[in-house]
């Protein structure tokens, strides 16, 4: 990294730290002042979990090929948070939710999610089912495995959050054809387009990271979402300013 990039990176990090910490503290003290905008996917998730408990059909949460260590670490943590919220809500039924990954370090993460959700729900032994499908970086084999799971495990709802490419179509099509809903979110652009085609409840971009704000009751998480919105406004402002400056300078 050259000096300008280093300085810019440090400034962005410091600004991010400052905005997140200040806004979070402010929202924690006055949580009623801020109302989060509607997210269809998060609104529907508790209902799907209740449906799974009533029907005795498990939900499936797949995080794809993301795990700890590497550029997908934070996406893996965000996906694990959604898996945790699903597992906690499904913990009162007969069939445990099925959590799957194709990353070896992702398995450690979802096993820990199973442990925490079981503890939260008061189960003496681990309740959910964490599985690793070692398909490697190309996850077509993983998608094929999940497709075959649909009838085998009688899956009621598919939550596909994490890292998926176009192979997401295989799993989603299998689910939609059986009349079962899909919630999808991925950090890959080709996967995001496929997710939109198959899922009525898609999480786009940063919405994947906001599960605990919408599904949990923590004011801190809500504060982080407000901070994220504020940072986005700041970013839009900077982009507009740069564009105006370029136009005024005749740079196009």
């Amino acid at each position, binding site marked *: 990294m050259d000096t300008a990039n280093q300085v810019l990176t440090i400034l962005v990090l410091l600004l991010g730290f400052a905005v997140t910490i200040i806004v979070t503290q402010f929202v924690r003290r006055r949580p009623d002042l801020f109302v989060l905008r509607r997210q269809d996917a998060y609104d529907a998730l508790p209902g799907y979990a209740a449906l799974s408990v009533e029907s005795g059909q498990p939900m499936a949460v797949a995080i794809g090929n993301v795990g700890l*260590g590497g550029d997908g670490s934070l996406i893996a943590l965000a996906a694990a948070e959604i898996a945790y919220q699903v597992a906690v809500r499904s913990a009162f039924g007969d069939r445990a939710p099925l959590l799957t990954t194709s990353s*070896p370090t992702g398995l450690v993460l979802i096993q820990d999610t199973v442990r925490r959700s079981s503890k939260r729900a008061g189960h003496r032994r681990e309740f959910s089912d964490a599985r*690793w499908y070692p398909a490697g970086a190309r996850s077509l084999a993983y998608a094929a495995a999940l497709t075959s799971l649909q009838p085998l495990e009688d899956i009621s709802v598919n939550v596909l959050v994490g890292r998926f490419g176009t192979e997401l179509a295989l799993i*989603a099509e299998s689910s939609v054809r059986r009349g079962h809903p899909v919630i999808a979110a991925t950090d890959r652009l080709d996967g995001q387009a496929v997710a939109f085609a198959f899922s009525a409840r898609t999480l786009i971009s*940063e919405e994947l990271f906001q599960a605990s704000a919408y599904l949990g009751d923590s004011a801190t998480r809500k504060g982080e979402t407000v901070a994220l919105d504020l940072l986005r406004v700041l970013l839009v402002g900077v982009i507009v300013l740069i564009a105006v400056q370029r136009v005024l300078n005749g740079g196009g």
Partner: protein
Amino acid sequence: MGEVSVRVRLSAALLTALTMGFGLLTLVGLVVGDNLGLLSGLVNQTPIRALVQLMLRFVVVITAVAVFAGVFNLIAVHVRRAATKRSLALYSVVMLISFCAVIFFGLRPSSDEGRVVLEEVQIALELAFSALVLFSLVYGAASLTSRRPRWSSALFVLTTVGMLVASVTMSAASPWAAVVDWVNTVPVDAGTRAILLGTALATLVAGIRVLVGQDRATRE
């Protein structure tokens, strides 16, 4: 019961402190280079960079151990299934035989069988899956407007079909080529950047959450 509760909280606190400490040190070691004056001097005088390299090596080792543990677990599951579940035993036996064959060929020096397994079996299977993905995508696009009759669904299908037809049939001199080019360079590029910037901002906030010890994975 009280003792257990206190012990759990202490271990969570220790884990959070370790995460915060090593996370911040790694961040500083990676971001601060050699040309930032006083800040670089501070980093160079302390063993932060060596510690960062050590941490990154630990990540590689831990990943390898996770793969090893996962493989053992996988083998154990399939051996158990082959022994107890008659209906699924065949798949598990095939999997175990394939696993042993790949390991055997992989361990032999200057052997081509491992490469053959990869190129002739795995790649061929993945190509077949790719063809299935195509059918799934066509089904998804075709049924989108009936499942979700909204203007956004119609726009999605129209754009997809239009771009596909244009890319197959149109010559570069056609007036529609300019429209296709504009769609690719302006709305598609803008949407791509918007999604990437949103993800980057969320990653920044999520990273800060981990660094200040607020993430659930380390707190519970």
